[in-house]
């Protein structure tokens, strides 16, 4: 319970007033000579316990009436949002509004989104405090604090409009903490409106612990109230592009897309997708099964320069996640570079060859001692089967990866203490009677993903007799049954570094048949071509600081666009910027209530579940206390009422003579 006029609560000792008056009254008794003492004594004796109880009740009612009057004057607020604990209105209320794309899901049975609902509820609730507290907005997209002139302005405030960003709750709380410290705020409350999306809340993030400790150590008391907009939503589907590559197929240029379709329903069916390519819309159909489907799509672009477009789903529960943009760049032929001294050189060259109009061009090959940083200039993929590079070459290779190139290291056969991107080669292992079997690999993305036709790469049939361990921490894309890695990936800038632990030699494995190694290297070759492109790709809200400095024009509308919050394809001179909604925003997973409460540790925390709780966050309940006061006074009046006339009446009249 929160009070809008908490100063009145200083008058709470006044509840003792009836008791004090009672004792003063008793002290002020008058002496009275009394004749009918025998009846008075008998009455006192027989009515002692009853009278005591009645006196006690009368006193209680008087105290209750004073208490209710004081609480009524203090204007209490109550509701699922406020709880019942007594508290005064805070000096500052920080409104943390989740503006992520998932917050634009429609609320079932209502003509508003979760974000609109949350804003309306927050504005209503904050309206009670706008004269007693500072209202400060801190939105998930900008994480910039701005003081609101009134609670109602929240609804129209620019920083509460929908975005295509993801929210980072720990970062928002970090900003809130910073604001509180910087502004030396007094008592504060943090009101959070969010849909509890797990990818936004990051419950496993180590920042939570330090954040809560920091809040605890603040000199002022901070209370957290969470409005969880977890209402039911109508059916929803989202679309995002996982991969895009421009390739030459049969001498013609084509764009290949791997599109992820996520749906709240699991039934099989057909999804209608509208593909827009350079302002020309085409309606496509995709077969979907289960909640998550990867749909592969390719379309010919010939030799034309780069282009852009978007894929769009029909309107559904969340209009915000129905569009994904893509941009394919000008033709930049990929180029492979093989660094090895082994006999596998030709094989690597063939596997990393590039198809052109004049047939396939094998990758260039260098000996480790001959390769120079200049040789990397036009390369998109480097296959390195030699001791790990060191010195200037290592730096050049790091820059190459940082720019978007792909590097694949194959085992040199000898353990080494050298490291590249935190990874190095360990011991070589030989299998016993049974080969090392590949247990699992990432079939959805990466170089070992399924083919466009949905076919698995034959890793399961791959017999491996020898392997060389990888030392260091990296994402495992494929692993053996014994959990040892087959292929690991380390992100480095815009590029990626891979360590493959087997060789396509018969003494090592059956990878030499090319069914795995060729698609793997070809995919990396295509992915690495991004290095040569001048296009920037970013997730909404994660646009680099350098790009943010530029003035971007939306390719779709021709107007200046906000690349930080709105997805789209943007242009600045001859530079392009593709901004898409973060893929994590399409996940439907939510954090449990108990887990959320656990995140805030010892901080006073109040959760309001919009789905479960009342429709109002809070309400002034002075009427209740006014009613209570009147009730207490009525009961008191009833208790102190004179004895009924029926008892007294017979005593009064003059009786008739006997």
């Amino acid at each position: 319970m929160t009070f809008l006029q908490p100063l009145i609560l200083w008058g709470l000792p006044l509840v003792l007033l009836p008791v004090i008056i009672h004792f003063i009254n008793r002290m002020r008794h008058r002496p009275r000579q009394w004749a009918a003492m025998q009846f008075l004594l008998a009455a006192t004796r027989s009515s002692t316990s009853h009278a005591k109880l009645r006196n006690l009740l009368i006193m209680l009612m008087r105290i209750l009436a004073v208490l209710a009057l004081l609480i009524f004057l203090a204007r209490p607020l109550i509701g699922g949002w406020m709880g019942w604990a007594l508290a005064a209105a805070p000096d500052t209320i920080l409104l943390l509004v989740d503006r992520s794309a998932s917050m634009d899901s429609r609320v079932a049975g209502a003509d508003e989104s979760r974000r609109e609902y949350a804003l309306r509820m927050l504005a209503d609730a904050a309206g009670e405090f706008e004269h007693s507290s500072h209202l400060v907005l801190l939105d998930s997209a900008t994480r910039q604090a701005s003081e609101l002139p009134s609670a109602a302005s929240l609804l129209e405030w620019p920083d509460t409009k929908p975005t295509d960003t993801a929210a980072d709750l720990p970062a928002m709380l970090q900003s809130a903490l910073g604001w509180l410290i910087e502004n030396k705020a007094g008592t504060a409350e943090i009101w959070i409106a969010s849909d509890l999306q797990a990818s936004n809340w990051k419950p496993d993030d180590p920042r939570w612990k330090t954040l809560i400790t920091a809040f605890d150590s603040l000199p002022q008391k901070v209370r957290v109230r969470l409005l969880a907009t977890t209402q039911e939503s109508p059916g929803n589907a989202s679309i995002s592009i996982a991969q895009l590559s421009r390739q030459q197929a049969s001498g013609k240029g084509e764009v290949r897309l791997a599109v992820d379709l996520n749906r709240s329903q699991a039934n099989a069916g057909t999804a209608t997708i509208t593909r827009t390519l350079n302002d020309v819309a085409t309606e496509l159909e995709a077969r979907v099964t289960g909640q998550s489907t990867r749909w592969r799509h390719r379309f010919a672009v010939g030799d034309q320069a780069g282009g852009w477009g978007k894929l769009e789903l029909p309107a559904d529960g969340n209009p915000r996640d129905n569009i994904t943009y893509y941009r394919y760049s000008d033709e930049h032929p990929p180029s492979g570079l093989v660094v090895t001294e082994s006999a596998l050189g030709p094989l690597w060259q063939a596997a990393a060859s590039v198809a052109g109009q004049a047939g396939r061009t094998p990758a260039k090959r260098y000996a480790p001692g001959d390769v120079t940083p200049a040789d990397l200039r036009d390369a998109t993929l480097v296959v390195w089967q030699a001791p790990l590079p060191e010195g200037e070459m290592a730096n050049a290779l790091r820059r190459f990866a940082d720019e978007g190139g792909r590097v694949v290291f194959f085992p040199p056969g000898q353990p080494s203490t050298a490291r590249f991107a935190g990874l190095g080669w360990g011991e070589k292992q030989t299998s016993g009677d049974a080969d090392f079997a590949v247990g699992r690999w990432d079939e959805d993305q990466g170089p070992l993903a399924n083919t466009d036709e949905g076919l698995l790469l034959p890793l399961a049939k791959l017999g491996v007799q020898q392997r060389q361990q990888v030392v260091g921490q990296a994402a495992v894309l494929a692993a053996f049954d014994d959990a040892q890695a087959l292929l690991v990936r380390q992100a480095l800038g815009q590029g990626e570094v891979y360590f493959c632990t087997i060789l396509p030699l018969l003494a090592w494995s059956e990878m030499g048949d090319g069914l795995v190694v060729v698609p793997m290297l070809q995919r990396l070759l295509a992915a690495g071509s991004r290095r040569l492109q001048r296009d920037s790709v970013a997730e909404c809200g994660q646009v680099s600081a350098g790009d943010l400095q530029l003035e971007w024009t939306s390719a779709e509308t021709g107007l200046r666009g906000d690349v930080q919050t709105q997805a789209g394809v943007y242009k600045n001179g001859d530079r392009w910027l593709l901004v898409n909604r973060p893929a994590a925003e399409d996940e439907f997973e939510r954090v449990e209530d108990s887990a959320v409460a656990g995140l805030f540790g010892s901080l006073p925390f109040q959760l309001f579940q919009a789905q479960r709780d009342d429709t109002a966050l809070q309400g002034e309940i002075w009427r209740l206390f006014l009613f209570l006061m009147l009730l207490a006074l009525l009961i008191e009046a009833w208790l102190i009422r004179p004895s009924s006339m029926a008892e007294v009446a017979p005593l009064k009249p003059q009786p008739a003579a006997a």
Partner: protein
Amino acid sequence: MPEPSAQPLIEADVVGRLMGQPLLARFPMEGSVSGHHRSPHRGSSVEFAEYRNYVPGDDIRRLDWRVFARTDRYYLKEFEAETNLRCYVVLDCSGSMGFEGEHGTRLEYAKRLAATLSYLIINQGDAAGLLQVTEKTATEIPPRRNASHLQVILDTLGQARPTGETRLVPMLHELAEKARRRALVVILSDCFCDGDALRDALQHLRFQKHDLALFHLLDPLELDFEFDRPVRFVDMEGSQSIITEPATVRAEYQAQLKRFLGKLRDDCHEFNADYRRVTLDRPYGEVMADFLTERSRHATRA
């Protein structure tokens, strides 16, 4: 201790209004001289009583010769005897009679009743006496008919002061034993004593064939018990005191009082005593007028 009121005990206008109404006994009285009241004996009044057979020794002058002529039998025609009234006014002078309400003290009210009653009785030729009951002494003035006797009664009444515990019950028993001849006993008291004992005493008087009239004097405050704040009640006949919130005990107090009053009235009705509850807010003249009227009506019916 309240001072005696400066108001005279007998007010001319009150007795003036009451003098037209004789005070009659409800039962036959035994007086010493002829009077207006019925006697248990046959006498020579004009009021026919009965015929009875002549027995030797009867005065033959009282034979009804007409009946003898018709029936040839000797009958005596008897007439009611009429005698004078002997009235004892019993005045309770215990401490509780000093209770002072809005309308004066109870004792002053009782004194005026006693004085007016004595005046009326003596004025109609009957004998009035006074028994003043205090804690230690009982002042008894035997019934006399002469006018100077009234002054004695008035002087005694004037000296009466409320004090101590009541000895009404033993004094009534004593009176019942002492007054052998039938008389009218008028009791003026608040009756704040043991109800059963009082009942026995009243019954004793009635057993002696006395005509009994009990004026139960109560102040309206004692009935209503209306106080707006805590009060320390001090017993007027003892040293006991009690601080209480009157509102909390009022109902029970009234219930106790009602029970007591009801029982006393029922007891009086049971042995045909004339019970009169009098609240002190009523003018005593009005109370006396009612008393006399009731008596006259009763005598007429009889």
